[in-house]
């Protein structure tokens, strides 16, 4: 039975960008408004379960946040009087303001290029996602003070840069949207890769990333990469129920119980990526989503269409090359042409500076040696990979393979 706060939380979070947008539109200073909205959300979380949900939740939040904002300015009493007059005048206007959609503007502002990626992530989760500083801190396993500092400095930085609460010029939009996509990708990845760890008290970051990606896609339905990213998240998250054992150990894709995959998420993701690939310019998120879709549509691991996956990785290598793309492509080639073909390519790729000494090279080599029947050599490579990985679950997996 969820607590009353848990039942309220989705509503509060979905209203966050609208409430913040309404305030910024009226008062202009989005830094102060953002703090005020955060406090109004906390007040709602305390008061609504106790006093009942107000008839107009959005109006309540706007009124409360406006009051909090004035309290923040209270040191200057003359300004306060002026502000309170403004406040009285503006309340009816604010509550009845048309629901201008501020979500996109907020996302773009929070992912401002002057900020580091961790700051973009923290600010986005708070200002658009409506998470509290404490929740963000728990999600990223860092102290709350670190996140609070990150957010306050990020807002100062944006202010210093002179950014306004409006969408940037059209020619800057592609780069700014790319930054938003990257931030949502990071949020998803953080949640997905950590989902095998102790999840007690951790906010569901994958769910949050999907929710925000969904919002972005609905604002930019013609953007193929926004659709591709949402599809990639859905198709990846669909496997989550089969991805870990009861004791938290990871199950590799080939050994997962596919009946436990989320069929609805797979159907939605596949439809999204199919539509995007057919109707928009191809991009890296779409290709990654397409690869995930090919994996997800195989009823058994043995049914996987590796030829198609190898082709998709070839396209991805051309469009967005990277060491992990190279390695995954080699695995696909090995599945089509045999492990020896993969090992030969791996020998060449391992000399690449981006891959030299990387534990994944050893892990892939181990896997291919196993497939080729060279089990003793494979064990040695598994051990090598286990010594170099920085992931505790991966280390457990690699050590267990080395011990087979």
């Amino acid at each position, binding site marked *: 039975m969820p607590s009353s706060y848990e039942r309220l939380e989705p509503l509060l979070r979905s209203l966050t960008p609208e409430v913040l947008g309404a305030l910024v539109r009226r008062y202009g200073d989005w830094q102060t408004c953002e703090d005020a909205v955060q406090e109004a959300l906390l007040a709602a979380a305390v008061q609504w379960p106790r006093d009942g949900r107000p008839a107009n939740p959005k109006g309540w939040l706007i009124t409360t946040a406006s009051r909090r904002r004035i309290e923040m300015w209270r040191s200057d009493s003359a300004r306060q009087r002026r502000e309170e007059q403004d406040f009285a005048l503006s309340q009816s206007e604010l509550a009845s303001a048309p629901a201008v959609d501020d979500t996109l503007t907020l996302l773009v502002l929070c992912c401002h290029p002057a900020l580091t990626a961790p700051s973009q992530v923290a600010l986005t989760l708070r200002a658009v996602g409506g998470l509290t500083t404490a929740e963000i801190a728990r999600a990223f396993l*860092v102290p709350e003070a*670190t996140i609070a500092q990150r957010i306050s*400095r990020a807002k100062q930085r944006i202010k210093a840069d002179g950014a306004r609460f409006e969408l940037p010029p059209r020619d800057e939009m592609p780069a700014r949207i790319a930054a938003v996509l990257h931030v949502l990708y990071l949020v998803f990845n953080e949640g997905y890769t*950590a989902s095998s760890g102790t999840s007690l008290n951790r906010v569901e970051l994958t769910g949050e990333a999907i929710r925000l990606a969904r919002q972005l896609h609905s604002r930019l339905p013609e953007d193929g990469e926004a659709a591709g990213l949402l599809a990639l998240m859905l198709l990846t998250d669909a496997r989550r129920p089969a991805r870990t054992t009861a004791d938290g150990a990871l199950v590799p894709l080939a050994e997962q119980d596919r009946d436990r995959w989320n069929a609805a998420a797979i159907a939605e993701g596949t439809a999204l990526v199919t539509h995007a690939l057919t109707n928009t310019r191809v991009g890296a998120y779409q290709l990654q989503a397409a690869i995930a879709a090919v994996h997800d549509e195989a009823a058994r691991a043995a049914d996987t269409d590796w030829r198609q996956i190898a082709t998709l990785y070839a396209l991805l290598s051309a469009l967005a090359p990277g060491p992990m793309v190279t390695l995954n492509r080699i695995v696909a080639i090995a599945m089509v042409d045999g492990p020896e073909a993969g090992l030969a390519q791996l020998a060449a790729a391992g000399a690449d500076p981006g891959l030299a000494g990387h534990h994944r090279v050893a892990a892939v080599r181990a896997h291919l040696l196993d497939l080729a029947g060279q089990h003793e050599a494979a064990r040695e490579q598994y051990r090598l990979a286990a010594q170099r990985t*920085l*992931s505790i679950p991966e280390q457990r997996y690699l050590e267990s393979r080395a011990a087979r």
Partner: protein
Amino acid sequence: MKYVILIHSNRMSQEVWEQMPAEERGAGLARYAALHEDLDASGELIVSEALGLPPTAKVVTVRDGATMSTDGPYAEAKEYLAGFFLVDVDSVERAVEIAARIPEAEFGNVEVRPVMDLSAFEL
């Protein structure tokens, strides 16, 4: 990615520090302050602490269920941990760049170690 930057000291580097003229030492501390300020501003700092010298250490052992605590035998050790930074950064290159700004890097040595996490992988 989280990295811990370990500042190793030894008797020699401690002497260098102690015998340093006041203004030079002040300059070293100012570099620390500037580093903290920059890491706060970028949001990369999680925590940093300076540690008490080896004579203040306790070494704890549990044998047959009994806890024993003795003054550290490490007073005689050549190298000891003088302090650390825990940072959250985009790359190992960035962690090394931060480590290079620590004054001790010039007369002691500073080690960068990645923090292991619970991240998973797809194979």
